[in-house]
């Protein structure tokens, strides 16, 4: 699903965020990306979302070389990837329903099909009763779940998440991770950047550790510990 070949990314300031990174993530995997701040986690996700381009090397997503995706084709490319963010990036002046519907509206889907899929996505994150509320009326954990519903509403094959539990307490964090694991069970490939080591180990999934832009450790999945999933 994701293949990085000798990928380097140097920002104009001169610091090298990623250097000579090789990485392969298979279809259907759920992978955690960890490391200190500045280790290159966000840069890696930005390369996958085509927010940044690599300085050297190749990034191949779902068989497609991202270098060949022109600026004009970026929106169509992004529509195939679900994205969840630490600050969830919801539109505060629109209801939960409208927020989740955004990717489908952008894709030009019909009204009825949109409503059906949006309700299904909101239901999956357990917020069906709150679809008419504005994000500010929700708790932080609920807001994050709305963000996740928006990421999965267009049924992407790949979902990337940047510190999705960064602002949550341990209990809510576990809840969010379990939600991700359920999507993984139905075949979605997930790449989740997080520094919540304890939680990651509890999930027992593959773990990629970055250090100063290089691969430091790549441990195989061990299976979930008691309490997860």
């Amino acid at each position, binding site marked *: 699903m994701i293949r990085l070949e000798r990928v380097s990314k140097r920002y104009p300031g001169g610091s090298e965020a990623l250097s000579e990174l090789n990485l392969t993530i298979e279809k259907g995997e759920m992978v955690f990306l960890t490391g200190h701040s500045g280790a290159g986690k966000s840069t890696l996700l930005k390369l996958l979302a085509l927010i940044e381009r690599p300085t050297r090397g190749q990034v191949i997503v779902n068989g497609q070389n991202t270098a060949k995706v022109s600026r004009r084709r970026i*929106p169509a490319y992004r529509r195939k990837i679900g994205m969840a963010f630490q600050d969830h990036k*919801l539109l505060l002046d629109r209801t939960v329903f409208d927020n989740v519907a955004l990717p489908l509206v952008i894709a030009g889907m019909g009204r009825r099909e949109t409503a059906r899929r949006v309700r299904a996505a909101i239901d999956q994150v357990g917020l069906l009763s709150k679809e008419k509320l504005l994000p500010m009326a929700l708790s932080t954990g609920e807001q994050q779940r709305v963000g996740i519903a928006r990421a999965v509403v267009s049924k992407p094959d790949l979902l990337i998440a940047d510190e999705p539990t960064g602002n949550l307490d341990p209990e809510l964090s576990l809840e969010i991770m379990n939600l991700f694991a359920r999507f993984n069970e139905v075949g979605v490939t997930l790449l989740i950047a997080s520094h919540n080591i304890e939680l990651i180990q509890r999930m027992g999934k593959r773990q990629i550790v970055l250090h100063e832009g290089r691969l430091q450790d790549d441990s195989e999945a061990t299976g979930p510990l008691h309490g997860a999933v």
Partner: protein
Amino acid sequence: MARSRSPRGGKIGIPGRVLGYLLRHAQNLLGALGGLCRQPLASLMTVSVIGIALSMPAGLHLMVENGRALSGGWESTLEWSVYLKPGVSERRAQTLANELQGRPGIEKVTVITADQALEEFRIGSGFGEALELLTDNPLPHVLVVQPSADSESAGQTTQLADELKQLGDVDLVQLDTAWVHRFHAILDTVRRAVTLASAVLALGVLLIVGNTIRLDILNRRQEIEVAKLVGASDAFIRRPFLYNGLWYGIGGGILAVAVVQMVGFLLKEPVSRVAGLYGSDYRLLSLAADEAGLLLLAGAVLGWLGSWIAASRHLRDMDPEF
């Protein structure tokens, strides 16, 4: 990707897609209007500025039109005296008058024979007894030519005079042309000035709309970045701003028409009073339906264009972050 079908849905035919496309545009169009109505004061300010900018060239244009209509009235009272050469017979004068009568640009030709002229002179001048001493009538036959009202431009007027001078039997063409020339030259200048002013003000409208849309875009930066993150194309993001610009332009056009008609209405009474004192039934022209339509169209096009320029310039730079 294999699992996720095309979001538009594979089973929708081409008519359905076209319908969906039109529906989305209609939604955007109405959505933009709704958005502007939610900020009535700010929208009204923008629309007013555009309206005033558009009403100026429209008002000037109307002034020129009125000047033309007025001078057209004067034109019909102008007469040219065409003096024929001495020795041209009265019959020849009549034939020439008939020939000229058929020409374009000439309304009417009357002949004043030498005898008639002498008679008039005898009565009018008080030199009656002195004229008795003359054995011959020294006066030539004269054709009084009245140009038609539609040959209003300065160029056409002089051209006709030149043509008359070319005729073999004509000695002199006399017309108090100086003031007509001046007036027409002034009208021509004003008309050109109106064209230039229109161009400058059109540019102004572009900038006003562009700047308003630019601020609008900056205010909604967060929303735009989120939309880009979830895969919105530039065209999708640009569309509501374009419709905003379109509405600004149309609103400005409507206001401009209203302003011009209002000014016309307020001036109608005093103008016809002045005209009445001069014994004229001259009435102030107001904007015709097609002119008003053109003004609206100009507003709409400028609004659309201004927002397109602003949106294209600023949306490109606005790349998302996380």
